């Protein structure tokens, strides 16, 4: 295609405008990395905290405390019964042990932490009073790459990023051009309408390649996130996602007359997906009745597929469902957008 072909020129214009906007560039490239770092620190893998346990003051309390002092997993303190009860209620200790015959464990059975405390403390108490292990045990500790929070998070951030840039990059740009009457000016020229719309998709393809390479590269370098699948499968998934969200952005922008309007609509569409689509935590946390709905959201499909390729090395054949979801969104949104698009 010659350099002065309108499609080349339109795509170049989109590309230049995108990269000459410092806000966009930092939003697309710096923000996800900063977010990954922040969340990576907040949810970093570390040895489990020692469980806080109180021994209610009274006869036998000090001797029990002395016996438990050597237990690695516990942090033990002797407290008056009123204080111990208050701390248990507010969750500052997980378990209160009342010495005596029998020994009483006081805890909230609905709290996971208290359950753990009961098991660990009981083990220590029984040992301290002379219980012997029946069988020899050997522990092997592992930290498997791909099972950490950051490994879960990174593909989700990439999915969210593709959603954001696809929708903003197309939707906001179109409405901005409509507000500036630039669309009208273009329509007054013999420019082909199809060239204009296709240029958005082409410019997206180029930016997507950069975004994905940058984010995944940073994830692998900084966090050691694994990449187990094929690059081709990954590229196919990322492209399908990018185009599905470009279509959604175009649809939202097709008749919107103000920048405020498109802002609101974008957030309305994106907000539920940030929460529901398994970006920051697994979508499996939502009730079963919601699952069919969640599964057909484009961001869920994209996140699931990106994760499957990256973390499990899943091939394209096994990704038929999310790919069909993404392509369906792409075809539906582009078709409707073209039908109702308002040029003036």
């Amino acid at each position, binding site marked *: 295609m010659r350099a*002065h*072909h*309108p499609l*080349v*020129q*339109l795509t*170049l*214009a989109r590309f*230049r*405008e995108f990269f*000459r*906007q410092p806000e966009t560039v930092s939003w697309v490239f710096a923000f996800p990395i900063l977010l990954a770092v922040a969340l990576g620190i907040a949810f970093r893998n570390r040895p489990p905290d020692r469980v806080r346990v109180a021994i209610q003051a009274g006869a036998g309390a000090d001797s029990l405390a002395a016996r438990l002092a050597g237990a690695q997993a516990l942090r033990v303190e002797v407290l008056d019964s009123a204080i111990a009860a208050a701390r248990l209620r507010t969750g500052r200790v997980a378990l209160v042990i009342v010495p005596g015959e029998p020994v009483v464990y006081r805890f909230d059975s609905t709290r996971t932490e208290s359950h753990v405390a009961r098991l660990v403390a009981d083990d220590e108490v029984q040992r301290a009073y002379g219980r012997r292990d029946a069988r020899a045990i050997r522990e092997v500790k592992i930290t498997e790459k791909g099972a950490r929070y950051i490994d879960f998070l990174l593909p989700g951030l990439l999915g969210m990023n593709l959603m954001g840039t696809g929708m903003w990059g197309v939707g906001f740009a179109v409405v901005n051009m409509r507000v*500036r*009457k*630039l669309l*009208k*000016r273009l*329509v*007054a*020229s*013999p*420019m082909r309408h199809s060239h204009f719309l296709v240029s958005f998709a082409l410019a997206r393809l180029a930016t997507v390649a950069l975004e994905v390479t940058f984010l995944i590269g940073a994830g692998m370098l900084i966090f050691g996130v694994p990449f187990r699948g094929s690059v081709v499968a990954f590229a196919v998934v990322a492209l399908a996602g990018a185009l599905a969200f470009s279509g959604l952005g175009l649809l939202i922008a097709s008749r919107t007359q103000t920048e405020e309007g498109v802002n609101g609509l974008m957030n309305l569409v994106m907000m539920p997906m940030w929460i529901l689509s398994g970006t920051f935590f697994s979508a499996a946390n939502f009730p079963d009745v919601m699952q069919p709905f969640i599964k057909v959201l484009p961001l869920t499909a994209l996140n699931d597929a990106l994760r499957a390729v990256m973390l499990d090395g899943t091939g394209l054949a096994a990704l038929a469902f999310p790919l069909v979801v993404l392509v369906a969104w792409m075809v539906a949104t582009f078709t409707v957008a073209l039908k109702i698009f308002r040029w*003036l």
Partner: protein
Amino acid sequence: MGGSAIICRGLVKRYKDVVAVAGLDLEVRSGECFGLLGPNGAGKTTTVEILEGLIAPDEGEVEVLGMRWASDDHAIRERIGVQLQETKLADKLTVEEIVTLFRSFYRRGHAVDEVLDIVQLGEKRKTWVSRLSGGQRQRLAIACALVSDPDILFLDEPTTGLDPQSRRQLWDVVAAFRARGGTILLTTHYMDEAERLCDRVAVVDHGKTIAFGTPKELIASLGAEHVIEFALQEGQAPPEDAALLALPGVHEVRANAGRTTLTVEELHRSLPAVIAELQRRGLGMTELSTHHATLEDLFLHLTGRHLRDE
């Protein structure tokens, strides 16, 4: 030259409860600069956008270069250049990039450098649009309209809001296009612009043409070529209209915001008579000015309003 570049008949466009264009006829000849002159809201922009094929009229016919909108859209667009009133071109692209973009839409046309020379933006070719002055932006808009070397150039209020120097630069560009045989349809509410650039003008008000002809003919239709304006000292009332009309060569008398305006045939006969009459009545002037009658005076004569209501 010769023949019609644009013909429209019985143009009507309504918006909800407003009639923007109310049965407008127009004929623009090839090679002329035709002006639509009228105040804001007269229907000029709607008319031009109908002629540019951007708005469909409710009634009426439009022919551009012998072709019709709806059947020959692409062919017409290849041959017209358009500057819209409010377009803001992409801020973050350079002058050269934008003109190259617009050039790519057309089969034939000028080289980008050539157009930048025509509008005198050669030195700014690498500058972002956001760093251009108002006048430079407007010349860039015109570069985008000229890049296809069009047969007809549509300019909608091209100099509104520009400083005098920028206006003159822009007039030069338009005049040069006209000199090479191009046809121009221009809207303006500046009478001096119309007088300076246009071969013929249509004065438009409330969506209709209320006067039509060369600027000279239109001014001559006032029956008098000069205008005398004076203001009196505070508290003094001007002579009654009949007394002023009785003076030699005075055609029309208007009082407007403390000033009295007389339309006269020959300044050298009327002016001394006016001064003598005021002195005879013991009235003192605080201001006196004269000018050649303009299209502004014509508009005032036709509608009783100024083109630009301050």
